């Protein structure tokens, strides 16, 4: 369903604007990578477009795998779960850590200490 809407959007956008993210900002991010010296215009365009596709893909996969379907919501934990469970999103686990309660964390710490003692 989303695939269709994405394609539809592309077709409409063909003659005017095919990307909505600001190219200049994407370029800035790319240039912040230390080894990169030059980026040609097509590569910049493609990266920007790919980022849009990525945002859609991440949002949709998280929504479809997530628990919010009944309530019509996409929450942080849906994203964190997707990052952990989907191989292509593994690179996100560092910035999408799973949330745990402080009490649970303390418990698991205690557990680990006990294990070490034994």
């Amino acid at each position: 369903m989303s695939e269709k809407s994405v394609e539809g959007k592309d077709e409409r956008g063909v003659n005017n604007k095919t990307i909505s993210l600001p190219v200049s900002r994407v370029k800035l991010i790319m240039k912040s990578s230390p080894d990169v010296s030059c980026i040609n215009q097509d590569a910049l365009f493609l990266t920007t477009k790919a980022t849009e596709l990525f945002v859609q893909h991440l949002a949709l996969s998280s929504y479809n795998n997530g628990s919010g379907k009944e309530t019509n919501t996409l929450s942080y934990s849906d994203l964190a779960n997707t990052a952990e469970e989907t191989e292509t999103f593994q690179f996100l686990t560092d910035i999408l850590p799973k949330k745990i309660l402080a009490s649970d964390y303390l418990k698991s710490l205690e557990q680990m200490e006990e294990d070490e003692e034994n």
Partner: protein
Amino acid sequence: MAERPEDLNLPNAVITRIIKEALPDGVNVSKEARRAISQAASVFVLYATSCANSFAMKAKRKTLNAGDVMSAMEEMEFERFLPPLRDALEAYKKGQKGKKEASEQKKKDKEKKNGTEEHDKSREEEEEEEEHMEEEDGENEGEEEDVEN
């Protein structure tokens, strides 16, 4: 150069719109989720850039080109993006050509440069789309901004 850390974020309004377009109507996206997706997008750009850059370096080029980005997508296992990316790039190029009517000039440039491009031959299967854009390192006029800073 990015002077503040916020400079490396993508605009929230645009990210929100893209998320909304991807999801079914009426889905509520929490503020935290939107922020996380936006950060994920920045990380994606960096990851893709570094993959693409390693392809460019392997081919001893200083300038990232479209083929490098496409190869990076494959490497990152986002093959699903390749067809829409190809379409978008084609449309983008058409738009540019229409504006500049520079296709004739480009063809001539390409013929001139064919000799210097032999070393790239091995990668050309991956780059069918990119035949017209092998211009390298500032030999081109205006359209490519190879700014070095």
